[in-house]
């Protein structure tokens, strides 16, 4: 927690460039140790699995000066049993597609159903079309994360209202491995809000000025939803939305990851 706060400060205070670089690399070294420690503390083992080792490199691999058009993004979405992870709601499925710059690589997609470890409330069955009997044959969340982490590698994560999904994912991460996901996260809802401020007129069609619900935003940008309410379908729709945002952002001078994270980053 402490590290995180400091890092946020670092972003806001205009330190000289070399100082920032120094600080980041210092923290990076520190953090690598920290993840391994956290994992050891949580599991009582010191042999961190291959699948998790990438997480140790994420912070060092991140270069804020990389152009958005050359960065790798993993656009993802989750389906959950409910809205409140504190009240015991769990992940049901996880879907993601990879983007390199503006291009969505459909072949490089990720889609897993997850065993929610408990009864699924009726209300969400209706939305997702997944029934408890279907859910029993699914892998455990830890197994899914062991596949997901190598998949996301050191890429930036992108989701709509990303905070929500990250809460669920990180709770699972803590439960399984004792540390949260290290990758930077971009929220397309924040990006939409920023674009709205930039181009008030273009957003005239939205129901209310603050409407950042996915359907409203997608409809505004003329995105046809792909198999809505499956995690992968929603991830793909989000990717198509993000694709457009990148173009709009670039037109407005947002070119590097640093700029993107400042506008739409979640911390």
């Amino acid at each position, binding site marked *: 927690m402490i590290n995180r706060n400091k890092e946020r400060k670092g972003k806001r205070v205009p330190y000289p460039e070399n100082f920032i670089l120094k600080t980041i690399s210092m923290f990076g070294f520190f953090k690598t140790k920290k993840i391994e420690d956290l994992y050891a503390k949580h599991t009582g083992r010191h042999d961190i699995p291959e699948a998790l080792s990438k997480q140790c490199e994420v912070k060092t691999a991140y270069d804020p000066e990389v152009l958005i058009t050359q960065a790798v993004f993993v656009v993802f979405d989750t389906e959950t049993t409910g809205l409140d992870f504190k009240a015991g709601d769990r992940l049901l499925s996880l879907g993601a597609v990879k983007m390199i710059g503006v291009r*969505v*690589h459909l072949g490089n997609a*990720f889609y897993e159903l997850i065993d929610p470890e408990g009864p699924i409330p009726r209300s969400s069955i209706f939305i997702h079309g997944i029934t408890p009997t279907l859910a029993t044959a699914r892998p455990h969340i830890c197994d899914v994360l062991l596949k997901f982490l190598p998949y996301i590698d050191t890429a930036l994560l992108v989701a709509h209202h990303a905070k929500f999904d990250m809460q669920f994912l990180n709770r699972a991460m803590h439960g399984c491995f004792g540390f949260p996901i290290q990758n930077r996260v971009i929220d397309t809802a924040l990006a939409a809000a920023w674009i709205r401020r930039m181009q008030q007129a273009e957003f005239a069609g939205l129901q209310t000025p603050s409407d950042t619900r996915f359907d409203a935003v997608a409809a505004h940008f003329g995105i046809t939803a*792909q*198999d809505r309410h499956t995690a992968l379908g929603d991830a793909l729709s989000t990717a*198509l939305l993000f*694709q*457009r945002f990148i*173009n709009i952002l670039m037109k407005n001078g947002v070119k590097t990851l640093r700029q993107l994270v400042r506008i739409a980053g979640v911390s």
Partner: protein
Amino acid sequence: MVEIPYNKIIDFFRGIVPFNELPQDILNGLPQKILIDYFPKGTLILEQGGSPCDYLYIIQTGAVEKTVRKDGVDILLEYRTEGEFFGSASLINETGPAFDVRTHEDTVCYLLPKETFNKLMQNHVGFHEYFAIRVSKLAYRLKKAQTGIFAPRGPSDTVVFRSDGYLFNVTAGDLVKRKSVTCSPYHEVALVAKLMAREGVGAVVVADVRSRPLGIVTKSDMTNRILAAGKTGSEPIRTVMSAPVVSVAPREPCFSALLKMARFNCHHMCVVQGELLHGVISQHDFIVLQGSNPLAVINEVEKQTSVAGLARVIDAVDRVVRGLLNAGVSAKDVTAFISECNDRLTRRVIALTEKSLQEEGVGPPPVPYCWLALGSEGRKEQTLRTDQDNAIIYADPEPLSDVTTHNYFLHLGERVVSGLESCGFPLCKGNIMASNPQWCQPETIWKRYFARWITKASPEDLRNCSIFFDFRPLAGAAIIAQRLRAFLNEEIATNRGFLRHLSTNALYNGPPLGFFRALVVEKAGDHKDKLNLKMSGLVPVVDAMRILSLSEQINATNTLHRIELVSRRQVFSKEMAADIREAFNFLTLLRINHHMAQKDKEIEPSDYIDPRTLSKLQKKTLIEAFHVIRVLQGELKVRFPESL
């Protein structure tokens, strides 16, 4: 990992030619290979002369425009929109794009990588063929744009391209219309110039005694190399001819001939079979060919002001029909097109004749009349130009046997029939034409004819019925024909026995099927080992549908239309109707194709076909068709039991 649900994307590809031909498992695997890219309005996606494409771009939403740059001006080639693609030529030829592709609006594209595309090209014939043809079409368009046939794009106007299918279906040999004018290399220039003037040609081929082309002389050569060079007419032609000649084989498609012309920058080229001259084609021929789209031909008919002019248009009709057949258009559409052309042509001949009669002082028609199309023309089922079958019915004059009225219409009939003959419609061998006094009669006489045939029903009467009862008003006062139709319906209703005679007569011709559905062919004579498509296949269906229609008081004459209407009256089931329709269509198409093939070999078209020349599938379909006809005839037999 759970299987990835990309149903929408798979559906999208399934809806696109030629992806729709790919097997299901290949389609399902397609999304795994695909990238999605987004291009805001105005993005230059491909650049003319840039690096070769790595992807086939398929437009998911949005639109792009293809333009070529020539002398600094952009010429719009075409727009591509949702479900269409671009980049294929560059991908296949591994060359830089031959044009710019720029987004016309915000556009999302699916990108199919080169390796995947090549794999599809290798493994799927239909896919390969589609792109092979597409690329050659594109090459032609580009050439056309670059040789400046089309004006460059101004700020607001756009050049719209017509479909150019004919350029790929029509061969250079098809374009040769007349024997080429030739001369010897030793002829004087003045003589050749006279030859040009007399024959009305723009180019003369210089050939040796064995008619091998040595060179070509055009009108522009005459001006540039003789007059402008200050030479006299006594110069031998070989000193001014262009040699060697640019030549093309008769089998080569038109577009390759066109490309050759563009490459050598010439207006005329020789069609050469082996070493020998076959004919000459000019750029003008291509312009005419471009006009040979169905609509242009129909309009051309309307424009003609003389019968001689109409006779010239008829060649274009043939060309279009050939194009339609090659393009795999259904029998229904081909015959509909032929009928439409023939109808318009006939109407035009009638109108022109009426006009010239008036100009000659004979005057306008004394009473209203109606020109009747009979037989296959009445049914709109002609294949190219079949024999004339027509008649004139005119309103009853006062008195009925008024000679001047009769003479006027007879005169009109004679003129129209001979006009149609000069347009290539052969005269009717049975003389069932409006020029025959017997078939150029007032309404009352026609009604008498019909009534007599129905009550007497002699073999000759029945034969007449099969021709005359399919009458259709083609020009003039249709109301007279309608009255005749109403009269016919009444007569049939009061003489139900007549239909039995007609039915018995119709059952003489049956499908040539033996035991175990084997085809039966002629045992001896000129048509040994062949079978008659018309008499044993088409005629039984036409007859059966005529009888059923007369019985049900259906006024339609077209057989397909009759099938439709009869099945609506629940005379037989929908499935049965579909079977009959299919059988009839198949036989019609087979017959037209057969005629076309015979015409190519310069054999008199006949309806006899040797089943051994058919493909396995065609033969199987033919047997099925005959079987359906047999069932139909069985139905007829039950409905109209043989008269005693």
